[in-house]
């Protein structure tokens, strides 16, 4: 159900493009996605300085339930003003195990673009396509795997995500 709602929101969101902030700006909001690589809804904050952007995405629901949680940082560079940004970053997925936790650390590459579907001035929406690859997974008393140590690459090493970020904020 959650994934269907996210898909619908993204479909609505892609109907237009909103101009990017020309001045340094700060935003905070939610990050929703269609796949199950992370929780389907997380929280995030973003800073934009010209064409450069920085995002931190955290997982309050995962922290609260002490189940799986996924935290990440992303940096982006707008390929042209108010246009698509090239994104790169790092995600740490933490899974609960008996007496400990297991970690999957992933590099993220992606594209993101501002949207213009929201009517209020201090709200904005961004859509993103992300490709995450698990570079290392590790946990106490469990084998550590680096990507290049995998005997055979397979679908489990990669994750493709369609993301929508709904945020409030504005220029500093």
């Amino acid at each position, binding site marked *: 159900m959650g994934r269907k709602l996210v898909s619908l929101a993204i479909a609505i969101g892609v109907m237009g493009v909103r101009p990017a902030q020309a001045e340094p700006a700060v935003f905070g909001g939610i990050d929703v996605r269609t*796949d*199950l*690589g*992370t929780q389907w809804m997380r929280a995030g904050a973003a800073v934009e300085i010209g064409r450069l952007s920085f995002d931190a995405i955290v997982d309050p629901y995962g922290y609260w*339930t002490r*189940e*799986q949680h*996924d935290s990440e940082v992303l940096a982006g560079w707008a390929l042209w003003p108010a246009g698509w940004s090239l994104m790169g970053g790092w995600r740490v*997925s933490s*899974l*609960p*195990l*008996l*007496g*400990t936790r*297991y970690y*999957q650390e992933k590099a993220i590459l992606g594209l993101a673009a501002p949207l213009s579907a929201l009517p209020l001035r201090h709200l904005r929406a961004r859509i993103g396509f992300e490709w995450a690859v*698990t570079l290392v*997974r590790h*946990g106490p008393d*469990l*084998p550590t*795997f680096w990507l290049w140590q*995998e*005997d*055979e690459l*397979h*679908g*489990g*090493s990669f*994750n493709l995500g369609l993301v929508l970020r709904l945020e409030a904020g504005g220029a500093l």
Partner: protein
Amino acid sequence: MRRLCSAAVLLAAGCSRPDPLILCHNANCTGKLVVHRDDTLEALRDSLAVDVDGRPAWDGIEIDTVWHGAQERCTFAHQVRDKAPDAGEAAALIADHLLTAETPSWNGSLFVLKIELKPVVGLDLEQHDGSQERQHAECVLDMVDTVQAAAAAAGVDLEVIADSSDDGLLREVARRPRWRDIPRRRLSADFGAPRPFTPDTPKLSDFAGVPLDVIEFHPGWLTDADVEAFRSLEVDFVLWMFSATPELLAAIRTYDPEYVNTGEAELMRRWIER
């Protein structure tokens, strides 16, 4: 299906925690996911020793069998391999485990022996002829005899799953009186990656008339419609995987399968028992 979530956790987190039986995928579940060790005696020995808190991490072992057409013998292997050991050697190792282990499996009383019958008999992906189907089915039942005798001697409850992507092999197993004499037996249809990624993935309709108890599939490779079709048959599920990714763990929560077939038995056990 057993449930472990307490009412408090249900209210707090809205979860229902699955508690599947864990199977040792391809007799190679030490967690290293070294594919070329799949279905080797060395990996089987190592896997039988994988433990969590002094108990086997798994509830059962999956053994793959290949009928080697050119050598006319039944092998313990993932694909046709000239130097593969006879399938009976794997059964003997498991029988020895049941006779000597203090605890036969994680759950302490039930051991699941899952035997997959691979459909290919030659290096050029040749399929079984009728005679080879019969010999392959007999081979599997010989393995069951070996393990069943050990289980009886050790006082262990044994469940046997005969699994294949080849409906003809399952029909051949199911029609044999020796199969029907197994007290706790299950027939399983096995679905891998969709065509053309793997050549031996069946269609569900291929199994028409086969009294399936179980369907095994990789949740990342099939559509929701496929899985809903499986659900309509009211069978139990085996979810198999390469590595335990967040998506796979989410699928376990979604489908609540009876069995999880994994190469990372310790990791999976510690996730389930968290």
